[in-house]
């Protein structure tokens, strides 16, 4: 069953990046009760930093490619954290729990940041050479080593987020705030500080997704748009604010995309996903994992 194995491998590869992207979005929603429409811009920033640093680094330092990638990844996350902190302090801090206000602020940011990214990185697509060459075959499905590396890293990052949320004090505070803000504040949790951390972790997840996608695709400033709409479908299916829902939703969307992308094309896959969402809403309006009040 080569085809089945191939589809599963493709699902994992597409899904791993979606998981990271959607996790950030759902975490920000859980903590701040806002939808970050500018999520794709943080994703694009990281992808562009990696794509433009990699060639420069390999030309100047002479280190192995994986070391270049590591340095570029750290730089990209640094850039995302700086942009995240700035946008939080200037804007989102004032729009905590304000869905409409934060929506328009984040869309204003999309327009603004798109302009800035085009200005800095130009609109030219930036491909980069593979970090690890070669192809590996798993149970009859073929995958480039490069993509396997991305899956591995995505699983590692997701696990790290999971451990952070489950095992650390900060994670407990984040979950408490997401469950019941007032009760959490009564326990002495500083809501504003925690929401800042939640926001930063959320945009860093978007940045990690972007840094991982850079070696697999050609990066350009508008790259985040497609991911945003799919991430929305993912969190509608999974339930807003639900971590396991985001993971399951991402894998489901990736599966639909790899099957329909294989037989038809990617646009068709997105349309089919939306139809499934509509049917899903008729049957189960609270989402896959949702027990959240709507």
């Amino acid at each position, binding site marked *: 069953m080569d085809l089945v194995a191939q589809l599963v491998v493709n699902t994992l590869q597409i899904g791993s990046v979606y998981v990271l992207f959607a996790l950030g979005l759902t975490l920000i929603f859980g903590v701040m009760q806002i939808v970050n429409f500018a999520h794709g811009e943080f994703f694009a920033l990281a992808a562009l930093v990696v794509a433009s640093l990699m060639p420069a680094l390999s030309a100047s330092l002479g280190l192995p490619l994986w070391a270049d990638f590591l340095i570029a990844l750290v730089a990209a996350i640094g850039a995302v954290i700086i942009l995240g902190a700035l946008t939080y302090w200037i804007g989102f801090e004032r729009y905590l729990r304000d869905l409409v206000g934060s929506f328009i602020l984040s*869309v204003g940011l999309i327009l603004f940041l798109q302009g800035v990214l085009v200005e800095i990185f130009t609109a030219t697509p930036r491909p980069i050479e593979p970090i690890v060459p070669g192809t590996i075959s798993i149970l009859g499905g073929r995958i480039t080593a490069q993509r396997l590396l991305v899956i591995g890293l995505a699983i590692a990052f997701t696990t790290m987020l999971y451990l952070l949320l489950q095992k650390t004090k900060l994670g407990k505070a984040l979950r408490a705030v997401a469950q019941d803000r007032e009760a959490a504040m009564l326990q002495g949790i500083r809501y504003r500080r925690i929401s800042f951390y939640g926001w930063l972790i959320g945009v860093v997840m978007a940045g990690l997704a972007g840094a991982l996608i850079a070696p697999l695709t050609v990066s350009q400033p508008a790259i985040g748009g497609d991911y945003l709409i799919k991430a929305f479908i993912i969190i509608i299916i999974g339930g807003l604010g639900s971590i396991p829902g985001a993971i399951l939703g991402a894998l489901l969307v990736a599966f639909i995309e790899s099957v329909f992308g294989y037989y038809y094309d990617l646009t068709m896959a997105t349309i089919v996903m939306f139809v499934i969402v509509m049917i899903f809403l008729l049957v189960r309006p609270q989402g896959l994992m949702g027990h959240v009040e709507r």
Partner: protein
Amino acid sequence: MSSARWMDIVGATALGVLLLLAAFSQETYTLKVILWISLNILAAVALRFVMLTGELNIATAAFWGIGAYAAGILTAWYEIPFTLAILLGGLIPMVISVAFGYVTLRTKGPYFMLISFAFTEVVRLIYTQTEIIGGNSGMIGIYSPRWLDPYYSLLVVACTILLVGTMFWLERSAFGRLLKAIQNNDAVVESVGLDVQKIKIICLALASFAAGVGGALFAHANRVISPGDFSFLVAVYALAYVKIGGEKHVAGAIIGAIALTLLNQYVISFGHYEHLLFGGAIVVAMLILPNGLIGLIERLTEFYGARRSGGSSRPQEAIDG
């Protein structure tokens, strides 16, 4: 005079000035700007009408586009009379919006917002995939009758006034109070035996009719339409007009649409800095004008009112708030 009364006057005056300019101006450029302002007002007021129930309906952009494509197909292919095409351009999205609302208005808040976003983008993808309506490059040759050309802006302003006026009247009626009650507490409305979802669907259908007519007028003004004209950004701009003008009163949507359309005419001359400047302006306006432009007018009238009566306006504010 209460500040709401002042707002009525501000809104009516703004629309009146637009109508006069559209009727008597001879300059093509002025007429074009009036046309864009007028269409933007219509989009903003249609979006705001659903916001009365507390839902942010990004699908306003989708129904705007469906109206444009429907009316465009009717006049370009079937040569249906213009007036009928515009009317159907409102009715077709209205019918679709009822089906859409039936499925999606079971959810509310962020879920409805995300679903309406996804709907808008998916409808746009469907246009790009449908070769018969031109796919990615869109449709051409959507003409209004030739004798109408000099009066087209006037017609658009007149339609806008009619639809905005109707929505304003509905907002002030018992139906409008019902919508605001749903925004405040839908459980209470449900508890007295009213069908909240049905009321929301009616509200969505009315707004989608207005948006559809707007799209149909847009298609005949542009003569060329393509999927790119109907992305979620249509709703985002409409929301920007509402928020920057001030959402408390319909005059806010009108003032906001006028101000931002004029600003856009100005920034468009900066070429590729256009998005950067416009996005920046939205962000700045959001941060410094929490109650929008009409919030400024409100504060001004309260200030003068307080001076005339020789007292502070605080107690009145407390009652309003």
